[in-house]
């Protein structure tokens, strides 16, 4: 009796296994390459996505396919609705268990930050991971178009891309009216003082917006001494950091102790939202427009 039961049990479980395996083979029908040139097996129909970085969450919302999102990382705070989605750890320290429990049939990762080992383990567990690697504004637009194709939101993606391109062009046209390049110190860290070098989005935005990035150089996030900053004589200081306004007032007061600093003389020290400058999303163009206005207010006087 017992033996029989065991036998049927084994047969049953074999059957269940087979049933489970067949659709698994079927699902991974399409093979594509992601931005890192890695082959990935894409499910036929993407039903559920876990986004592994705040910027990716933003793009998914911008594409209007947020219904697919079942999980996001910590600090996915834009748009506000994203904050209420289940969290899977921070983007540099992902919580594998939570990701897998959400049963996504696709994860979207970014090369900048997501640890490779986690990505590899997700793939071992048969969760395809599409990795993006936006390096500058143009590749951000490409990324948006690619994700649009991937998630069947081509139209929205085309619209977003066209919108971004035309706004960038407009800024380029306005800035081309002047030869002056405003000397800008872009402060993203307060203690120690940290700025953004050439291999960053911030550098590209500064140059497009008609500024001279005083932290230009091979290091992505170089550290500065106060002495060094003062000797560079910035005309404008922009402080982002994740600082609250009280912290900002304190930092501003410290810079104000050097009245000969051009930025102090002209009262051009500003606090801005860091998310507009360091997240590879459509909002980066908002950051560009803002920056252009801060660096060349005279050119924008007539334009409303």
């Amino acid at each position: 009796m017992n033996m029989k039961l065991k036998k049927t049990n084994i047969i049953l479980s074999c059957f269940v296994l087979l049933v489970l395996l067949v659709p698994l083979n079927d699902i991974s029908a399409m093979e594509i390459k992601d931005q890192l040139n890695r082959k990935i097996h894409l499910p036929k129909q993407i039903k559920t996505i876990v986004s592994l970085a705040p910027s990716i969450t933003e793009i998914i919302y911008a594409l209007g396919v947020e219904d697919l999102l079942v999980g996001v990382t910590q600090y996915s705070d834009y748009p506000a609705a994203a904050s209420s989605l289940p969290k899977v750890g921070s983007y540099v320290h992902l919580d594998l268990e939570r990701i897998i429990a959400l049963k996504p049939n696709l994860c979207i990762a970014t090369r900048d930050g997501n640890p490779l080992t986690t990505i590899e383990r997700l793939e071992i567990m048969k969760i395809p991971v599409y990795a993006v690697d936006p390096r500058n504004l143009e590749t951000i637009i490409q990324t948006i178009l690619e994700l649009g194709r991937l998630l069947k939101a081509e139209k929205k993606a085309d619209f977003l891309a066209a919108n971004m391109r035309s706004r960038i062009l407009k800024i380029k046209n306005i800035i081309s009216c002047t030869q002056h390049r405003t000397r800008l110190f872009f402060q993203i860290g307060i203690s120690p003082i940290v700025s953004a070098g050439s291999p960053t989005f911030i550098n590209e935005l500064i140059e497009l917006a008609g500024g001279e990035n005083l932290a230009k150089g091979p290091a992505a996030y170089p550290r500065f001494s106060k002495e060094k900053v003062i000797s560079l004589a910035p005309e404008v200081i922009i402080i982002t950091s994740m600082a609250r306004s009280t912290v900002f007032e304190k930092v501003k007061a410290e810079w104000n102790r050097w009245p000969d600093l051009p930025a102090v003389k002209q009262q051009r020290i500003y606090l801005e939202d860091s998310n507009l400058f360091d997240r590879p999303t459509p909002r980066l163009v908002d950051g560009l427009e803002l920056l252009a206005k801060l660096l060349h207010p005279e050119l924008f006087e007539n334009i409303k």
Partner: protein
Amino acid sequence: MKKSKLNLPKRILVVSLILLIILAGISFLGLACGSTGIDFLALIKIIFKSEINESMLPAIIWQIRLPRVLLAALVGATLSLGGLVFQAILRNPLAEPYILGISGGAAIGAIIGILLGLSRFPGVSLLAFAGSMATLLLILVMASDKTILKKDSLLLSGVMVNAFCSAVIMFLISMTQDSRLHNIIFWLMGDLSVADLDQTFSLAMVLIPCFIIIFYYSNVMNLLLMGQEQARAMGVNIKLVIFILLVITSLMVSSTVSYCGLLGFVGLVMPHLLRIILGPDHRVLVPACILGGGAFMVFCDLLARTLPEQGEMPAGVITALIGAPLFIYLLKRSSR
């Protein structure tokens, strides 16, 4: 004397069995709890029945929690054993790989390896081994002077070696903008989340032979505690045994450090607790430390990944929170 010797195999067996049951129990807890919730019933079902349902739970348990529990057990066993060996050789109840700075030396080697872009095995592990051997040598040179065998001066030199190591680590971190060091703060406080089954197995391949060798020398460690003269009189080649034990221990410690960073005080908590319960015989203590240390670490890791609401904390935070007060207590008691 003779009677207790007769009972020895039995005693080892009983102690091991009890600790094995404790380890199994805590491991079971470790498999049942995670950041997605606690479910004992489902775990029992998954372990004992071949039932496959729609849920992802089996995958989570076998591929995420199990490697982690195994890694924690291995690391805990290694560090406890490391503490036990150092305490016997240096005849100092407060010796421990982390406190002596040997873990720190291994960490320096590992970080240099990571910065050079070497693979975890053998590159990073070998450099970690070299680092731990270098600090060990430093401590031994200091210890060769008789006065150092006094508790306080040995500990002081350990503190200094440790301070130096953390300065070098901070120096290396400050000099680089390397994105591979993103998780370094976590790693410095002991991070077990990297575990996958293959790596855990390859680590086990290194560690388990070391456990066996140390068990082989457990009786010699008893003799060492009586004093080197005594041991020599019993016909033990002291220098050779000490050399082998130290090399094996620093190999074990450095390979765990290169996998999961600095976990402090584990080598203090378990050996002391077990010595109080089981007495000073190393033939019993060695297997007990392996199993008990494993259980302790699995428990600490369990707390580390379930206590925080969001994400997790480094397991070294928990081991230090438990271990450091104990260390202070032991220091106070031994100075009386």
